[in-house]
């Protein structure tokens, strides 16, 4: 599992992905970790298949008992089907996830982890001195969906928005936006169901000061590419399968 520190300040952001041991028939995912001095938050910790390499990778940055928080942007298996395993490994942790998915996510088994339901209008996750904002992203693509914004690090973890299917050894940042567009087009047109939801999200996100847009699949966007992405997404017609 490749590990890349994408922010270092009073706390750290680490991106995990491009797992070379991953079975070929499951989608590649990016996991993110926010590390404060004594706590650790895993964002979209991944599927059950990914649990062992992900746990092993996290152990380079934090001991098990300091993994105190998990966040699931939505209910998909590639996002959180590892929940049952984290539930057995962690003795004192919370799962922050959309309120409307609680009864569904508990199917993955969530007995020792405390489920902290995120209301539709969002909320925050306080991790020692760091306060992360939970930005509503409903219908992008899931009906109950949140992204995580860190105003200090200026990072927006954007779930499936900005995602692309990439080769396993591809770079972690977009280096040629124009060339990258074709890798994203069908994904967004097919997975995102609502132009209205998309417009509302873009309006909301344009008000945030973002250095890095960090999706759950593919490459991250940095600097001017963040605005380029928002403009491109704004102009894209989505929900094409009907």
């Amino acid at each position, binding site marked *: 599992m490749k590990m890349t520190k994408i922010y270092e300040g009073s706390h750290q952001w680490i991106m995990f992905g491009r797992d070379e041991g991953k079975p070929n028939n499951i989608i590649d995912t990016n996991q993110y970790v926010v590390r404060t001095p004594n706590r650790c938050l895993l964002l979209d910790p991944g599927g*059950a298949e990914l*649990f*062992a*390499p992900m*746990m*092993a990778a996290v*152990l*380079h*940055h*934090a*001991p*098990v*008992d300091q993994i105190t928080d998990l966040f699931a942007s939505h209910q998909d298996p590639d996002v959180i089907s590892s929940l*049952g*395993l984290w539930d*057995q*490994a962690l003795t004192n942790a919370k799962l922050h996830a959309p309120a409307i998915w609680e009864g569904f996510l508990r199917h993955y*088994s969530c007995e020792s982890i405390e489920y902290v339901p995120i209301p539709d209008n969002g909320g925050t996750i306080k991790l020692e001195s760091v306060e992360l904002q939970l930005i509503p992203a409903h219908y992008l693509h899931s009906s109950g969906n949140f992204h995580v914004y860190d105003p200090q690090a200026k990072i927006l973890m954007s779930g499936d928005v900005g995602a692309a299917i990439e080769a396993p050894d591809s770079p972690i940042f977009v280096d040629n936006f124009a060339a990258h567009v074709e890798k994203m087009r069908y994904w967004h047109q097919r997975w995102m169901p609502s132009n209205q939801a998309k417009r509302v999200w873009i309006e909301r996100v344009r008000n945030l000061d973002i250095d890095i847009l960090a999706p759950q699949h593919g490459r991250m966007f940095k600097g001017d590419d963040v605005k380029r992405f928002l403009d491109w997404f704004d102009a894209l017609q989505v929900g094409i399968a009907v």
Partner: protein
Amino acid sequence: MTNQTKSQFIAVASITSELSAVMVVAKEISLAAANAKAIAFRAGDKAKGFQPITDFINELAKETIELVTNINIYALVLYRLTVNEFQKTTAYNKFEAAAKMAEGAVYAKSMQDPVDQAKLSMQDCQRQFKRDVSQLLGQLEAVMHHARAARVIAANSRIEASQAGEYLQSLQAVAESVDKAAHTIHDNVQRCRIALSIYRNS
């Protein structure tokens, strides 16, 4: 999922299926008993020996139904335990894999406690499963005992039926249906026992 886990799931699931067939048959015996009672009543003195037998048949059917109902509840508990054991075993294997992959990581040692805990939980589940299987086998043995008793009653019924004059055929039919039902119960329960017995000492 290993082959043994798959077999364990199938064995536990098959109990419910086999026992639902036993339940149907036990209800048939109960009906046969009611039918026999009516015939014996009509036959009067000619079926005097048959009358107490009908009560036995009825009682046996009721007890079998009760036993099977309890076993079904127990089988459900065993199924949940199988699921639990599967989850604990999966967790233990994944935790071990994570610990191995984390060799050289700064905090690799912190994985040892979850690995140890997962191993203990998994072993607890395995022990509990074996205990519960032994108990279930005991309950199944009780049903087998009832099936054997039913066959003895069926044999006695045939003897009594032979003295019932014009009611001979009707009462023999009752004896046949009890005997057939007892066979079915015996065979189904025996299949359950064979499927489960390998887990008692595994």
